[in-house]
C-alpha cells in the first residue's frame, strides 16, 4: 500500500532519518511523563484542557493504532461497523459487529501469559505493542526509543478485535509484578495517561469480575466520538469533599444500572480513593466495572450483581450504555426496554447499594486531608 515514487528532473527528496521503528534492536517507543509539579498544577491543567490541540500522547496513540490497522493486523475494520442511537430517554448506542464476539475469549486469553518478557533478541514480533508509558525525569513529556519496556510502566497493546476505534489494552509491564490484584501505582499511571491524552473521546475501562483474567490487572481504552449514555444521565451529589480533598461523589439516578461517580481535579486524590474502593470490592468478591472519562477527572463505578444464570458480568462499555450486537436481527430489534432490562438484571440491590454508598463516602472522607 505504501509506495515511494521517484520524481524525475531536478527535484529530489532529502534523505530521511531512519524512523525509530526501523532501527535495529529498537522495538518500542517509550513515552515518559513530565515531572509533576505539585502545587498549582491542578489549576494549570484545568485551564489548558478543552481548548488545546491533540496532545503528544494522544497523537502517538492514534498514529500507532492507525499504523497497526494500516499494516493489516486488525481482525476487522471497526469503522465499517454501523452505529445507531436507540432514540428514547437514554439514547443507548448500539453497534452491528458480527466479528467481535467469537474472537473475544481468544484475545483475552493472551493476557494469561506474562507480557513483560519483551527482549531485544525476542524472535517473536510484537507489532501489537504500540507504546510503553512510564514516569519521566524531565519537565516536559518525551518520547524515546527503548529496546525493552521499563519495569514499572504501562504497555499499550492494540486489540485486533476492537469494540471501537483505537481499542487498546493497558497492562503493567513489570515482569516481577506480584500477583496482587490492584496496583495503586499502576492505576496512577493509567489515570495520568487519561489526563495526558486529554481527549474527551478517549475513555478507559476496567472490569473486575469477568473471571477470565482473575489475577492480572489490565485496563482497556477506546475512542468514542459521542458521549456515552451514562455520561448524560442525571446525578445527585452524595459526598462533597471539595473544600478538603477535592473529591466529590455522585450517585447516578434514573439509569437502569446503579452507579457512582467520583470526580476531582486532583488526579492523585482520585487515584487513592478509587484504589481503596476497588480493593475493598475485590476483597469482598464483588464484581464491578470502572469508566475513566473526562480527561481522567471522572471515574464511574458500576457495582454488579453477578448473573446467577451465566456467572458473568456486563463489560464496562455495556454498563455505559454501548452495546455490540453480533447479528443483524438483534441489532435491528434492539430496544431501550430490552437493554434497560438487561442492565437492570445486573444492578445492585437497594440495600447493598446503600452500603456501598456509605463505604465510598467514608473512604473519600478518610482521604480528605
Amino acid at each position, binding site marked *: 500500500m505504501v509506495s515511494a515514487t521517484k520524481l524525475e528532473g531536478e527535484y529530489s527528496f532529502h534523505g530521511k532519518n531512519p524512523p525509530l521503528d526501523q532501527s535495529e534492536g529498537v522495538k518500542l517507543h517509550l513515552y515518559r511523563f513530565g515531572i509533576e509539579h505539585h502545587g498549582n498544577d491542578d489549576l494549570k491543567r484545568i485551564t489548558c484542557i478543552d481548548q488545546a*490541540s491533540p496532545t503528544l500522547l494522544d497523537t502517538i496513540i492514534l498514529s500507532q493504532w*492507525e499504523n497497526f490497522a494500516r499494516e493489516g493486523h486488525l481482525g476487522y475494520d471497526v*469503522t465499517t461497523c454501523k452505529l445507531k442511537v436507540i432514540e428514547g430517554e437514554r439514547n443507548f448506542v448500539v453497534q452491528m459487529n458480527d466479528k467481535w464476539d467469537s474472537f473475544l475469549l481468544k484475545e483475552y486469553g493472551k493476557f494469561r501469559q506474562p507480557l513483560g518478557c519483551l527482549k531485544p533478541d525476542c524472535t517473536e514480533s510484537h507489532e501489537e505493542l504500540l507504546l510503553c508509558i512510564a514516569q519521566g525525569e524531565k519537565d516536559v513529556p518525551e518520547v524515546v526509543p527503548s529496546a525493552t519496556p521499563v519495569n514499572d510502566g504501562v504497555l499499550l497493546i492494540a486489540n485486533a478485535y476492537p469494540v471501537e476505534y483505537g481499542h487498546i489494552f493497558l497492562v503493567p509491564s513489570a515482569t516481577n509484578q506480584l500477583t496482587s490484584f490492584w496496583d495503586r501505582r499502576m492505576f496512577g499511571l493509567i489515570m495520568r495517561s487519561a489526563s495526558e491524552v486529554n481527549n474527551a473521546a478517549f475513555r478507559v475501562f476496567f472490569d473486575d469480575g469477568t473471571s477470565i483474567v482473575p489475577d492480572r490487572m489490565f485496563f482497556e481504552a477506546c475512542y468514542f466520538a459521542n458521549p456515552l449514555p451514562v455520561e448524560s444521565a442525571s446525578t445527585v451529589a452524595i459526598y462533597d469533599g471539595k473544600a478538603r480533598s477535592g473529591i466529590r461523589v455522585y450517585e447516578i439516578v434514573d439509569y437502569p444500572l446503579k452507579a457512582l461517580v467520583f470526580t476531582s481535579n486532583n488526579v492523585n486524590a482520585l487515584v487513592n480513593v478509587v484504589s481503596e474502593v476497588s480493593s475493598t470490592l475485590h476483597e469482598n468478591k464483588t464484581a464491578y466495572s470502572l469508566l475513566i472519562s473526562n480527561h481522567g477527572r471522572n471515574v464511574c463505578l458500576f457495582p454488579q450483581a453477578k448473573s446467577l444464570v451465566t456467572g458473568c458480568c456486563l463489560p464496562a462499555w455495556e454498563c455505559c450504555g454501548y452495546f455490540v450486537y453480533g447479528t443483524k436481527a438483534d441489532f435491528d430489534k434492539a430496544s431501550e426496554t430490552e437493554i434497560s432490562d438487561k442492565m437492570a438484571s445486573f444492578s445492585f440491590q437497594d440495600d447493598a447499594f446503600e452500603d456501598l454508598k456509605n463505604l465510598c463516602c467514608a473512604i473519600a472522607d478518610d482521604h480528605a486531608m
Partner: protein
Amino acid sequence: MESSGGAPPAEERRLLAASLTARYSDWVLEELDELPGSFLLTDPAMSGHPIVYASRGLASLTGYRPRDVLGRNARLFQGAATDRAAVAGVRDAVRCQRAHQVAILNYRRDGAPHWVLLHVAPVFHAHDGRVLHFLAVQVPIAAAPRRRAAPCRRPPVFAACREEARVEEELPCASHAGEAFVDIDKRGLETTRWLEAGEPRVASGCDKEKALSTANSIFSALNRYSKLTGLVVCGKRCDSAGIPALSSSLNLSLGRIKQSFVLTDRHLPDMPVVYASDAFLSLTGYSREEILGCNCRFLNGPGTSLEVLEEINRNICCEQACTVHLLNYRKDGLAFPDLLHVSPIRNASGKVAFHVWVHLDESIKHDFNGLSPEVWQLGAVGAVRVAVRSLSASGSLLRPSQ
C-alpha cells in the same frame, strides 16, 4: 447602455486576442468557433472587464457580430426593462467568483428585448486558483405555457405560435429556438413584446441543462488547448456555496487536529474539498474560501507524476488507503515535495463518506517525536476517523440543507 463603437482599433484587438492566446494555444479560437451556442468570454484582469471572445452563435441570438462586442463590457446586452435584481445577482457572482444562472431580460442589437437564461461561470487557473476568464452562456427562454394565466387574459397570438415552436424544439433539446424569434418582424409588435418583457420567464430544466452542457464543452475545449501551453483550467467554483456545510460539532473536532489535511466529499461530483485544516492553508498559501468546493488537483502542476495520481485514484476507487510521494504546488507557484497519505473515512453508518488527504512538506525538517513521518501523519487520520464516526441523535453528520 454603451454606444456601439464599431470594431476596436488594431492595438486593442491585439490585446484582446492576447488575453486568450497568452494562456491557450492559437488553435483555441478555431476550436471555440466550432462550438454551437451563444457565449462570451470576458477578462476580469483587463480594464473594464471586456469581452475577449464572442461565439458565432451570438450573432443569431442577439444580432451582434463578434466585432461589435469585443472590447466592450457585457452589460451592453442589458436595457431599460432588465431586472436590476438579476443584474445584481450576476455582479455578485462575478465578485465572489462563482457560477450563477439567472433568467434575465436582454436586448438585441435592434433594441428588441428577449429573455435568456444567462449562465456565468469563472474559469480558474488550476494551479493558483486565479480567475482567468468569465464565461457567459446565453440560452433563449421560450415563453411559458399560459396554463396558469388568469382566464380573462387572452394569450397573445405570437406566444401561442412560439409555444408550438418550443414544443417542437424542446424534444431534441439542442437547438436554435432563439432563431425563430429573430425572424419575426418586431415592428408593430411592441405591445406583445412589452407584455412578454413584463412577465418574467422561468427557464426550464432543459434550458438549464443546455446552458450547462454548452459551458462544459467550452471548458473542455479550453482545457484541451491549455495543455499545450502547460496550463490547466478548471470550472469548479472555488467557494463553499453549494458545498454542504459540515455540522458544527464535526467542524469543531476537526479544528483541533494539528496536521495539514483536507477532507473531500466522496458523494459530491468531482470529490470537492469540504474541509481544510489551518495547517494545510499555511502549507499551501490558499485561503479556505479559495479551495472549498475544488478538487484536490489544484495542487498539481508541471512535474506532478500522473502515474502517482493514477495510483491515488485507483486506491480511492477500491476504498484503500495509500501513502505516496508527489510534487505539488503552493499558491505562489513554488513546488514542494509532498508526502501524501490518502485514506477513506467512514461515517457512523460504516460507509465511506470522505477521503482525508494528509500533506507533509518533506523539504522542511519536522520533529515527529521518534515516529516516522508516515506514522506521524496517521495520527491525523485516526483523529479524523474518530470525529467522523460521531453520531448525532438524528444520525446525520451534515446540517440539514436549506
